[in-house]
């Protein structure tokens, strides 16, 4: 499996760029990258699981909706994410399972508060035989 994800520099905020063989792996890479920005995954144990499903009008909106759902799990429900497994991702829906645990201030380092997942310079596309994604978060 070829999958990569890295942080990209941005004037006011932070973004992620990822490549993967499949769109499912791409969404996993972006979601885990987002989780690392909020609370580094090395501090989180995969004790519980949580299902996510979003329905969206197109693949880019699906990326925003899916990542917003991951963010909501962390920032609304205080469920810290250790790993993300995307079962299926299409232009109109994403089904995934998050592994992680409830927030424990003695072990979890909240590194950043992400206000939202934006459409700015958003890209989700298949190019040169692999899936490419870029997303910017408002910090």
């Amino acid at each position: 499996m070829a999958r990569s994800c890295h942080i990209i520099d941005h004037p006011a905020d932070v973004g992620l760029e990822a490549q993967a063989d499949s769109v499912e792996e791409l969404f996993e890479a972006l979601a885990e990258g987002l989780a690392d920005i909020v609370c580094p995954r090395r501090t989180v144990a995969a004790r519980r699981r949580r299902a996510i499903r979003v329905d969206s009008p197109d693949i880019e909106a699906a990326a925003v909706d899916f990542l917003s759902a991951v963010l909501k799990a962390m920032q609304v429900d205080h469920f810290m994410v250790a790993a993300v497994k995307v079962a299926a991702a299409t232009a109109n829906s994403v089904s995934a399972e998050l592994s992680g645990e409830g927030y424990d201030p003695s072990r979890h380092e909240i590194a950043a508060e992400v206000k939202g997942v934006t459409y700015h310079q958003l890209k989700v596309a298949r190019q040169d035989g692999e899936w490419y994604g870029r997303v910017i978060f408002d910090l």
Partner: protein
Amino acid sequence: MGKAFEGKIEQIDANRWRIPRSNRPDMRVDGIIYSNQALIADTLSGGGVEQVANVATLPGIVAASLAMPDIHWGYGFCIGGVAATDVDAGGVVSPGGVGYDINCGVRLVRSDLPVEDVRKRIKELVDQLFRDLPAGVGVGGPFEFSRAEIAKILEGGSRYLADRGLAEPADLSVTESGGCLEGADAGAVSHEAYRRGADQCGTLGSGNHFAEVQYVEQVYDEQAAGAMGLERGKVTFMIHCGSRGLGHQVCDDYIKSLRSSPAKYGITLPDRQLVCAPADSGEGRQYLGAMRAAANFAWANRQLLLQILRQTLARFFGQSAAAMGLRQVYDVAHNIAKIETHVVDGRKMKLCVHRKGATRAFPPGHAELCDAYRGIGQPVLIPGDMGTASYVLIGAQTAMEQTFGSTCHGAGRVLSRQAAIARARGRRIDQELAAAGIIARARGRTGLAEEQPEAYKDVDAVVDCVHQAGLSHKVARLRPIGVIKG
């Protein structure tokens, strides 16, 4: 990732540049950017200018798509942007024109405390404030509210807190809109937004939000400074924060729920982040109801932080708030959309004025100003970077004529957070600030690095620009001596 502007731009005068609508067929009005020789190069190399042109395409936009001298790249709309749309002619409201941190704003408190006395105990004072003012990511506050109480905060803002004994009536009169926007709809705020913000009313948060101990370093307008109680050498306190997670979620919810509105209303957008609906449509009214509720939450948030500040200072100095002359000077919103009446081409119009990283700056005599300031104009609070200065200005008539009663909101970033962190590597920002007489404490690992003075534009140049352009006039310069960051 900021893209330099490649279109046509022409200088109008020493403080204004125009992006003619002839640049693009979809522009309905010109773009006008307030800037000056000290700032224009940074402005043109950022991505904000293209965004000014994008905003000029919105249905119902009136006069021009405007940007203040602290312009920098934002989501959809630039930061420092002002756009007014004609509500009665299908003019739109856009969540991107307000931003994620709805009613992010600034509150200023004056005192009779001489800076020489406070400086002697500044380390101790900053440590105490750092303990008492909840700051940092995900940090809850000492105030607990039930869901029903949060709903009352959403609809009543600081006014509800005054009923609960958590705000002085005098605070409300010196808060923009009295600390409560009419027409807020708590029912338009999602369950997730309630949950995200429930324990955050009365907290600073993180990012560029702060509380500062400052002193009045310079007075430019004795009469206005006198009316505000600002005296050279006396200590002031500034709070900068917004609606926390609740506001972020409201923005997120409505960017999603308005996604289908452009197609429904036949609106073509150059950027999906500009998603919008006619302000006078069901969708527009619902967003405005939720946005106002989040704005009221933000005013309540800053009000509760003021309550904590008063208690801490009274305990620390062993004097009552009254004995120290602690009094709120003003509170301004700088991320908001408001329905206001303005005169455009000699005609009174009901406009939806978006101010995103821009401050209302109403002139002397404006009916919305409280008695204390009707004679001098509305106080405008401009936070600068933590190593330089903040400013107090007053609104002026030119702002009513050119910018729908608006001016700048701060210094504006020039370095990305990553670049700022990289530039701080191997340095101790806290020690550098201490050497300059500023004691700073931050909750997060990278907070001081991200917010270091070099990360921002020169606030003096930004303020000089709006002063010279006549949008607002300088009253006082405030120098920080203590900084609390999230």
